[in-house]
């Protein structure tokens, strides 16, 4: 297994399995959560791509941030994200995670999610339809198959930068330290 070529084969198999088995923790922060039931159930059936819901962060691969994040929610989201096990991916869902969307001048929401958590792929729109959500998941699958979905690695390497950003908006920072 230490041989470079055999490691490559193992990686291809692992990435294939990861690609086709995404357990999603749908963190319903905003109005976008209403699109998730439609995506998962009969009409759009995301399970045919191996996408299914996970009940807890421990079992999840994908953290789906559906919509705006108030600073209060951000704290919980960070905590949830850090409880997830590697490899893990974040999907920013809706305009609110990209530029604040309709909350662009709000005093208590964050504007760009990527400043606080490493986003692997964005789905734009307000609201994105289930087709767009599935399109986003397939984009993530392509990234995983190519081995390019490395948000978690980026987060670990630039943890100081992310922490500084997080602490800038979260004033009462009382959080446990996770050692992954």
């Amino acid at each position: 297994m230490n041989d470079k070529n055999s490691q490559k084969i193992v990686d291809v198999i692992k990435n294939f399995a990861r690609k086709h088995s995404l357990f999603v923790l749908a963190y319903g922060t905003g109005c976008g959560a209403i699109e998730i039931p439609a995506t998962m159930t009969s009409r759009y059936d995301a399970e045919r791509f191996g996408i299914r819901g996970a009940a807890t962060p421990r079992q999840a691969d994908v953290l789906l941030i559906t919509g705006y994040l108030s600073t209060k929610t951000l704290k919980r989201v960070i905590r949830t994200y850090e409880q997830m096990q590697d490899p893990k991916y974040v999907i920013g869902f809706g305009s609110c995670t990209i530029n604040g969307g309709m909350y662009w001048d709000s005093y208590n929401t964050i504007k760009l999610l990527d400043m606080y958590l490493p986003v692997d792929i964005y789905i734009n729109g307000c609201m994105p339809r289930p087709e767009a959500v599935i399109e986003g998941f397939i984009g993530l699958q392509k990234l995983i198959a190519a081995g390019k979905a490395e948000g978690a690695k980026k987060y670990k390497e630039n943890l100081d930068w992310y922490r500084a950003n997080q602490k800038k908006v979260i004033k009462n920072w009382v959080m446990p330290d996770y050692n992954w």
Partner: protein
Amino acid sequence: MMGDIWMTLLGVLVTTLLAFVTGMFYMGASRKITARVQNRVGPPIYQNFLDLIKLQAKDTAIHHGWMQLLGPAFLMVSAVGSLMFIPVLNKGLFFENFTADGDIIFLLYLMVFGSLGMALGAGQTGNPNSAIGVTRGLTQMVGFEIPWVMAIVALILQYHTTNIAEILEAQHRSGVWSMFANPYAFIAALLAAFGMFRYSPFDIVGAPAELASGPVSENGGKFLGTMMSSHAVFAFVKLVLYVDLFMGGADNLVELVIKTFGLYLIPLTYGMVNPRYRTEQAVRYFYGWPTLFGIIAILYAVFY
């Protein structure tokens, strides 16, 4: 002597592999069938294998203590252990493993061993959802074990033996499956199986929407993978046990698959059309008709 040991080990390996692959495909089929019932396309039938590879390839940096780490192993040990004492096919057509050494009563203990180990493991995680899940699971077990044990006692009384192989033999000698020789026992056992398989309406233990998957909630990655494979093996164990006890066993693997899958469809389809029970409703269900059928089965075995 040496050759015997190697044959035993080969038997253990082949039987476990058969149980694992069959169980995983049954679980995949159940997801596919559920999807078709809900007018969806559904995941491919091999989806569970992909899930398993992915789960085993995940990092696992969760550590709440030794019992939590041992919980999934207990499940696996219980599943594979009980598999070793159940004849897969009739009359030694398949590897016999240790079927000559164990009887039903021993098996009853061995089959709950895994759940109890898992309960201890879940308790150590300190997650309140796990604790509630464990309480519910043990309560439900108290419910369905009663009709299940009654059905088995009826069989023991009827055939005057506790050995599974001898019960099989007796069914062949009389030419009547015990599901017809003592239908009440079969009905009681079948109703108990609804609780044993934990499909809805008896999925009160996992209950993703209210308990965040219950005892499993702190277990991700490799733990979840081990639990999934042990569930696959254990599903096969239960199905083969039912086929052996009530349907006269199977003469070849095709017959085994047909019988076990037919049995598997019963709790599955019952679950598709039912929402989830509350804990007390589930227990009340098991103390109702299933227990009544269990009593009738015992009376039938004694007086008929």
